[in-house]
């Protein structure tokens, strides 16, 4: 197979057996690879209704046909499982170099099933795989685990692992690779921990065969040139992803104090230029990335002394304005220790911010919380709580369950300001300021996610995504049902990047006509733009089918009450809420889904070649 290694590793952790199986090429073409192909394994092999933290769940890593090639920003890979945070489709995507290393070790993906009796590490060494004891690593965090494995196996090995948070089954634990790169969302680190799998170390020197080398070289060079010339590179390279914080704030949509307002007064202290002037020590690129949006940072002394990578925009957003902390040092420290513990920064910071509001409203008391109180602006308390969550100590044990479960336990109306969708904590874009962004949050298959549709690009950032034919939003403060098509198109188009093994940022700078030649020349598939777009829609519907099978319906495609009913109190978006229902109606129409249930119709599934899920979800 071209573009792929042609093999998937199946590891039964209960029995300790390891086998190889061929990558199904027809499925790969239909679903491109990566999260698309992994989702097919998930829906076919994981029974409905299982406990996400039980041995019946499967954790499936998958690269794509562009992973590890010279196409721009192609170091990415995905993992899927049933999410312990949402109970629905759990998917996460990461960069760095680990995806390339898995492929060069000889495998496109790994299916992890069952549960080991004792902690183990999966070692993949140039076409062979083995499980080895990990007792000495259990209880260690990500940086130490990574170092220990490199020392044991050799520096050429790259490590994907969990920290203490994953071991402790924190529902939003991440799986980390290259130390600071995260399969961040949906709690896949807890799934890995539930299987007693501490790490996967991969190394190899196998070559990824390309079908038409000359055409691939030409297509990747053209794409790289376009990225190099772009505003995307110019801004992300200099300021990192934090560059967006001012643009979001200017529109009055920067979630502050757990989304009580969208206006923050101190972004100059925590934005991209502030990072550059205070803590930046270098820039870091993922494999084959011309942009290098990663930040290397260091706080040299004091209580927040730390050295590592980040913070990204979302981490600044949740540990900064969301918790009302205006100091880059605790924000950065919190972000770096999340990486070390293996915690999703978005869910961690959001859950802490939610707890802060609960304390301020008297719904949580120091007595209930073992003598601890959390208040907005309490930087030390925020950092302390990250440690407690990872270790499940005291109040941290409750917060380790995530905002949704905490609010269900506390009750007393706290669900109104529990800022999640389907259980996944929201990213830092207040959709009351740009209405269509709310539709993206509401319909994202993995929950309150910002990179599924990335519609904040054309709304908050005024940056189009060239990967779709049209992404213009005329007036971001108005609900325009016709523009629900932009969300649908962006979901479909950006889904393909998680399948291909490339960065979604490429979707800003590259048109489908420039991406398709890379896929076609790498794989040898005679693919055109129409087939590429259909593949995205197919993957999106397949993940939706998984959710429907697990009980998702239109009722789950919603937003927290705060966004639907509480007007923003100040700033450019003062007085605005989201009127979601008309947008949802239009969205289902564009999707070909049943408006009453939110279920894909049998006709739509068959049109996409997904006949095999029609019965599974009772589509009509």
């Amino acid at each position, binding site marked *: 197979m071209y573009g792929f290694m042609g093999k998937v590793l199946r590891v039964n952790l209960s029995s300790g057996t390891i086998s190889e199986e061929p990558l199904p090429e027809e499925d790969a073409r239909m679903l491109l690879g990566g999260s698309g192909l992994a989702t097919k394994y998930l829906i076919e092999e994981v029974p409905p209704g299982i406990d996400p933290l039980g041995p019946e769940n499967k954790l499936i890593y998958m690269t794509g046909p562009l992973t590890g090639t010279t196409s721009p920003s192609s170091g990415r890979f995905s993992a899927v499982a049933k999410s312990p945070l949402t109970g629905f489709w759990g998917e996460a995507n990461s960069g760095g170099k680990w995806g390339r290393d898995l492929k060069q070790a000889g495998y496109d993906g790994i299916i992890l099933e069952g549960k080991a009796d004792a902690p183990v590490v999966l070692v993949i060494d140039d076409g062979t795989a083995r499980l080895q004891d990990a007792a000495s690593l259990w209880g260690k965090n990500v940086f130490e685990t990574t170092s220990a494995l490199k020392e044991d196996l050799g520096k050429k090995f790259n490590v994907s692992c969990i920290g203490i948070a994953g071991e402790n089954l924190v529902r939003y634990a991440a799986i980390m690779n290259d130390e600071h790169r995260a399969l961040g969302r949906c709690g896949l680190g807890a799934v890995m921990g539930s299987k007693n799998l501490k790490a996967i170390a991969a190394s190899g020197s196998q070559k990824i065969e390309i079908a038409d080398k000359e055409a691939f070289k030409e297509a990747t060079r053209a794409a790289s040139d376009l990225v190099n010339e772009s505003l995307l590179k110019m801004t992300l390279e200099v300021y990192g992803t934090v560059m967006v914080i001012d*643009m979001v*704030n200017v529109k009055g949509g920067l979630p502050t104090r757990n989304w009580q307002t969208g206006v923050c007064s101190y972004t100059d202290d925590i934005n991209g*230029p502030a990072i550059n002037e205070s803590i930046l020590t270098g820039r870091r690129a993922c494999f084959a990335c011309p942009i290098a949006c990663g930040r290397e940072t260091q706080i040299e002394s004091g209580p927040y002394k730390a050295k590592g990578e980040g913070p990204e925009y979302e981490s600044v957003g949740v540990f900064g304005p969301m918790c009302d902390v205006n100091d880059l040092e605790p924000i950065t420290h919190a972000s770096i220790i999340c990486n070390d513990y293996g915690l999703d920064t978005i869910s961690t910071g959001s859950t802490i911010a939610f707890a802060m509001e609960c304390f301020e409203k008297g719904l949580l008391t120091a007595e209930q919380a073992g003598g601890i109180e959390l208040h907005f602006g309490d930087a030390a308390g925020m950092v302390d709580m990250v440690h407690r969550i990872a270790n499940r100590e005291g109040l941290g044990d409750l917060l380790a369950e995530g905002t949704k479960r905490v609010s269900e336990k506390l009750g007393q109306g706290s669900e109104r300001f529990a800022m999640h969708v389907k259980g996944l904590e929201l990213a830092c874009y207040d959709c009351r300021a740009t209405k269509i962004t709310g539709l993206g949050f509401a319909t994202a298959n993995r929950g309150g996610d910002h990179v599924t549709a990335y519609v904040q690009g054309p709304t908050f950032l005024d940056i189009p995504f060239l990967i779709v034919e049209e992404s213009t939003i005329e007036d971001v403060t108005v609900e325009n049902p016709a523009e629900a098509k932009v969300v649908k198109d962006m979901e479909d188009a950006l889904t393909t990047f998680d399948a291909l093994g490339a960065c979604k940022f490429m979707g800003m700078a590259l048109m489908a006509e420039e991406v398709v030649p890379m896929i076609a020349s790498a794989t040898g598939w005679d693919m055109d733009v129409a087939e590429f777009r259909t593949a995205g829609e197919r993957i999106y519907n397949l993940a939706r089918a998984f959710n429907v099978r697990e009980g998702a319906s239109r009722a789950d495609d919603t937003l927290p009450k705060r966004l639907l009913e509480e007007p923003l109190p100040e700033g450019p978006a003062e007085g605005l809420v989201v009127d979601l229902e008309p947008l949802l109606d239009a969205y289902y129409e564009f999707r070909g889904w049943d408006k009453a249930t939110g279920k894909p119709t049998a006709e739509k599934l068959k049109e996409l070649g997904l006949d095999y899920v029609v019965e599974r979800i009772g589509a009509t």
Partner: protein
Amino acid sequence: MAVLYPSQEWCDAWKVAINGSERVAETGTKWGVGWNGSWVFEVLPGSGLEETHYVYLEPEPGTGKCKDSRELKDPSEVEAGFLCTGDYGAFKEVVKGEKDFIEGVVKGIFTLKGDMSKVMRNAKFIRAVADSISSFEASYLGE
């Protein structure tokens, strides 16, 4: 000799600066080819400027040269492809070379309207044109 910003003399000097810039020439080969690449800069009052001021800039398609640079009484006098808005204080900082124009856009100090896909793909040209603005001496209102 310093030319007053904003004024027609300043617009003339900017045109000369653009046409003398090798970076603008190198990076402007795709700008405006088959589409409207002209700009209106809407300078809002403040920092010594009392009324909103408009500057028009028309690059020659595909050459990186400046065809026209002038003051406007009203933006409706022209049909521009792009509108850039910011206050006089912020524009002054760019003209003085104290603020990076792209950073101003990223921070929301300047807002852009128009086909942003063209901006996305021609950022080096825009930066080169913006940098040329501080290559000659200017004087300012309110100083």
